[in-house]
C-alpha cells in the first residue's frame, strides 16, 4: 500500500463513519491539534466529526535527512469526534484493519500516555497505541483546551503516517517509502529535510525571529481585544512555531523556556476565552 493509498484508505474509512474530510491548515505548526478544526472546535458545544491530513514541523527533530526515522517535517492523520461514539476504540481498531493491521495477526495495545500541551494550555487522558511494539497513534480524550474545561469531550486520534507506512511497506527508512508506485517519499521531501535542518539548527536569524515573536504577541492581543478570534489564533500558531525554531536553534535557555511557553499559553487562553464567549452569545456559529 503506497503512502497516498494509505491516506485514501483512511479517508474512505472515516468518511463512512460520518466524518467531514477536511484539509490541513495553511500555516506551520507542530501538530494537527493546532489546526482550528481541532483547537477551536473542541471548545464549543456543537457536534463535530472531522478527519484530515496535517503536515507538521518539529524543528528540533531535523537530522539533515540522515536519520531514517526522524524528520523536522512529517505528516499526521488527524481524526476528531465530539461527542465521542461509544464504540470509538472499536472504530479505531477497524481503521487499522483497513490498512492491513488486523488484530488477529498483530499485537495491538493501548499503553497509557496522558497528553499535555503546556503551550496551548491543553491536556487530556489517553494512550499511545502500539502495533507490535511500535507507537502508531496518539489517542486522547481532551479534558481542557486553552485552559478551559471542554464539554462535550472531544476524542482525538493522531496517526503517525510515516511510521505506519514504514511498517506496512516494510522499509527501513522513511525516505524509501513509496509515495506512489513510481515516486518515493525521499524524492519529494529529502532535500526539504536537508535545507530546513540547516535553517532550523544553524541558519535561522534569531534576532529577526525574536522581533517577530514580540510583534506577533502584540498583534494577537490587539485582535483578541477586538474579538477577532480566528486571526488572533493564527498568531498563536505563528508564535508557537517561532518558539520551536528558536529552541532548535539553541537560542532559548532552560529557564527562559518556561517563561516563553507561558507567554504563548496566555495568548491561547485569551483566544479560547473569547471563542467560548462569542459562542455562548450565539455570535459564533462557524
Amino acid at each position, binding site marked *: 500500500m503506497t503512502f497516498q493509498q494509505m491516506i485514501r484508505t483512511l479517508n474512505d474509512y472515516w468518511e463512512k463513519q460520518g466524518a467531514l474530510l477536511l484539509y490541513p491548515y495553511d500555516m506551520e505548526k507542530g501538530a494537527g491539534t493546532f489546526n482550528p478544526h481541532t483547537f477551536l472546535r473542541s471548545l464549543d458545544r456543537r457536534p463535530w466529526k472531522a478527519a484530515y491530513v496535517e503536515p507538521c514541523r518539529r524543528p528540533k527533530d531535523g537530522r539533515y535527512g540522515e536519520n531514517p526515522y526522524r524528520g523536522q517535517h512529517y505528516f499526521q492523520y488527524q481524526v476528531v469526534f465530539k461527542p465521542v461514539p*461509544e464504540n470509538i476504540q472499536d472504530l479505531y481498531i477497524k481503521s487499522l484493519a483497513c490498512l492491513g493491521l488486523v*488484530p*488477529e495477526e498483530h499485537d495491538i495495545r493501548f499503553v497509557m500516555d496522558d497528553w499535555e500541551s503546556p503551550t496551548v494550555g491543553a491536556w487530556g487522558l489517553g494512550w499511545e497505541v502500539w502495533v507490535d511494539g511500535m507507537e502508531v497513534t496518539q489517542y486522547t480524550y481532551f479534558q481542557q483546551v486553552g485552559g478551559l474545561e471542554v464539554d462535550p*469531550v472531544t476524542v482525538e486520534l493522531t496517526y503517525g503516517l510515516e511510521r505506519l507506512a514504514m511498517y506496512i511497506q516494510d522499509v527501513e527508512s522513511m525516505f524509501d517509502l513509496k509515495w506512489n508506485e513510481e515516486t518515493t517519499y525521499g524524492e519529494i521531501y529529502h532535500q526539504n529535510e536537508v535545507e530546513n535542518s540547516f535553517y532550523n539548527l544553524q541558519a535561522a536569524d534569531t534576532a529577526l525571529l525574536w522581533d517577530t515573536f514580540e510583534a506577533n504577541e502584540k498583534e494577537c492581543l490587539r485582535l483578541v481585544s477586538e474579538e477577532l478570534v480566528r486571526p488572533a489564533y493564527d498568531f498563536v500558531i505563528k508564535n508557537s512555531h517561532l518558539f520551536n525554531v528558536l529552541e532548535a536553534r539553541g537560542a532559548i535557555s532552560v*529557564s527562559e523556556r518556561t517563561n516563553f511557553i507561558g507567554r504563548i499559553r496566555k495568548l491561547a487562553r485569551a483566544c479560547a476565552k473569547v471563542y467560548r464567549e462569542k459562542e455562548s452569545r450565539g455570535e459564533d456559529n462557524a
Partner: protein
Amino acid sequence: MRDLLLEIGVEELPADYIPGAIASLEAQFRRLFEENRITVGSSEALATPRRLVFFCQGVAEKEEDRTEKVMGPPRNICIKEGKVTMAYEKFLEKNNLTESDIFWEETEKGAYLAAHRFVPGRMTRQIITEAWPGILGAVEFPKKMRWDDSGLLFARPVRWLLAFWGEETLPLKAGGVTAGQETFLLRNSPKKRARVSSPATYLEVVEKSGLILSRERRRKVILEGLQAVLEKNGASSFHSESLVEEVVDLVEAPFVLTGEIAKHYLALPPEVISAAMSQHQRYFSFYREGKVLPLFAFVANGSFVHPGKVIRGNERVLKARLDDAMFYWKEDTSRGVERLFDLLDTVTWMEGLGSLSEKAARLESLTAFLFDGDETARTGARMSKIDIVSEMIKDGKEFTKLQGSIAKYYLLEDGREEEVACIAEEHYWPRVWGDPLPRPRAAAVGLADRADNIIGAFLKGFIPTGTKDPYALRRQANSMIALILGYEKGEVHLDKGFDLESVQELFIKTARLYGAEVLPPKEEPELLRQVNDFFEDRFRAQLRALGIPYDIVDAVCDTPEKNLKVKYRKALAFKALSGRDEFRDVAATFRRVNNIVKKAREELRVEDFGLPRDDLFVEKETKAMSREWVNVKEEIQRAGDDYDRIFNAILNFKTFVDPFFDTVLVMDKDASLRNNRLALLQDISALFGGIVNFDHIVVT
C-alpha cells in the same frame, strides 16, 4: 444465597492504576456487607487492563432481621390522671405497635415508654443497587476523566457492565452504560464478544477464552515464560523484576515471545542495551556472567498462531532504538572526554549561577577539601558531569536514567583511570537509604555535589516548604546524611560512613565559592542559617526514622556538637539510658539548673557570671557540691565518649545537687553570694549542655 459478580469493562486502564482500584472496589463491598449484616462467603477482586471484576460467593438474600429498641416519651407524659395520652397513642401508631409490644424502661431520669420493634432485613439486591453509584464513584484512581455527558468520573471510559445477582441482572449503570449480558473477550481471538447469563457462565466463558483475570496467575505465566527463555539460552538473570510487576497489568493474556538483536549492538554498554529494551518498550534483557545476550523477551497480549509478524515488528522497533543508542555512543566517544568537558561550559547549571563547568570546578575544590587534596578524587570530581552534555543523556531520552554510568563508560573508553571513571558513576549513590554506598572518593564528590545543589537552590530561593520541593533537596540532604552515617543492610554502621567533622563547614566553603557577586558577605549568615536549619531538620527526621525518640533527638541535637556521627552515637546511648529509672529525674534536676541560670541572666541582665570562687561558698551543701564539681569535670573529661560513664557521673553528682536545692536559696539578697552560686550553676549548665540538652527531655 447467591453469587454476585460485577464486571466494569473499560478502555485500557493504566497499569499502575489497577492494584489500587481493585483493592478499593473490594474494600467497599466488604464494608457494605458488614455494615448491613449481610453474610457472605469468600470474595475476590480481579482485573485486567480492560476490566475490573468483583466476585463474591454465597451472599445472603437479605440482611439479617433484627429487633431494635425504640424509646418513647417519659411515663408522666404518656399517662395523665390514670389515662393514656395522645403522646402515648401517637408513639404506638408511628411505630406500628400494639399494647402487647410495649414496656416501661427504667432509666436514671425515670420510666420511659419503650418497645422492641422487629425490623425485617432489607433485600441484598436492593442494598447493592442503592449503594452502587457511591461505590463506582469511589473506586480509587490517581487521576479521573470525563468522556460523555453522564457526569461519571472514572480512570478511563466505561464501555460495558455486567452485574449478576445469581442469574438476575441488577439494574446498575456506569456512566452511559447499563448492565447487560455481554462481555468482551480478547481482541485477537475469533470470538470478540460473548453472551453470559450468570457468574458461573461468565467465569467459564472467560476461562475458555484464554484471558486471565487473576494478576497472580498472569505473573506466574510471565515468570515461567521468562524462566524458559533464561534456561534455553543459558542465561543467569534477567532485567528486571520490577518490569514484571508492570507487565502483569499491561496484558489480559500474557504470551511470552522472544526476538533477537544483531550482535554488533553488543558493543554498547549492557546498561544501555537493557535501557533501550526496558525503558519504553518493556522488553526483558538477559545476562550471562555480567554480559548481556543478543536477544530479548516481550509479553504480547493473547496468543498468536503465527507470531512471526509480531516478533518481527518488535525487533524492528528495538533496532531503531538501538540504532539511536549506537549513534549517540559513536558521536560521544568519537569526540572524546575532553570535548565533552569543554561543552560543560556551554550549558547553564542554574540560571544566574553559572555553567556546568563552573559547577565542576566547585566540586573539584570542595572534594580537595573533603579528601585531603587527593589527585584521583579531584579528577573524578572534575569529570563527574561530562555525560550531561553527551548525546546519550541530554534532552531526556530513555537513557537519561543512566546518567553517571554513561560518564563512567566514556571515561573508560577514553583510557582514564578506573577509579576516576567509577567516581563519575558512584557519586550519585545512594539515591535512597539502603542503596549501595559509593567508595570513599566518590562519597566525597557526592557530598560536595549535594552541598552545592542545596546551596545553589537556596541562593535562587528554591527553599523546600510543605509539599513543595522542586529540586528534591530533602532527598539530597538525606543522601548526605546516609553518606556520613554509613550503613550495612540498612542498619547504621558508622565505620561505613564518610568522616566529616562539620557539615556546616562544608556549607560555608560551598557558599563562598560562589563569590561576593552572587552572595554578598552581608547576606551570607542568613543564607547559611537557612541552609543549616533545613539540614538540621532533615537530620533530626532521619534520627527519628531510625527509632530515636523525639525528645532524645532534640536533646542531643540541640548542643554545640557538629559531628553527625558523634550525635548519632550520643542519640543511641541516651536512648538506652532513657530506659533507666533515674533518667527522667536526672533530666528534671539539670533542667532546673538550666532554668535558674537562664532566668537569672534575664532578670539580672548579666550575660556571664564569671568563674565561681571557693571562698564565697558558705553553706556546707554548696561547698560539698562545688568540691564534687571539680571531680565530676575530671571524670567527664576522662570518660570521652563513654556515655554510660558520663551519665553515671551526672547521676552521682545529682546527689550533691539535690541537697543544695533543698536547703539553699540561690537568689540570695547578697549579690556576691548569689552571683557566685550562679557562676557555679552556669558552669554545670554549660558543661552538661555541651553533651546533652536536658531541657528537651519529656519528664512526665
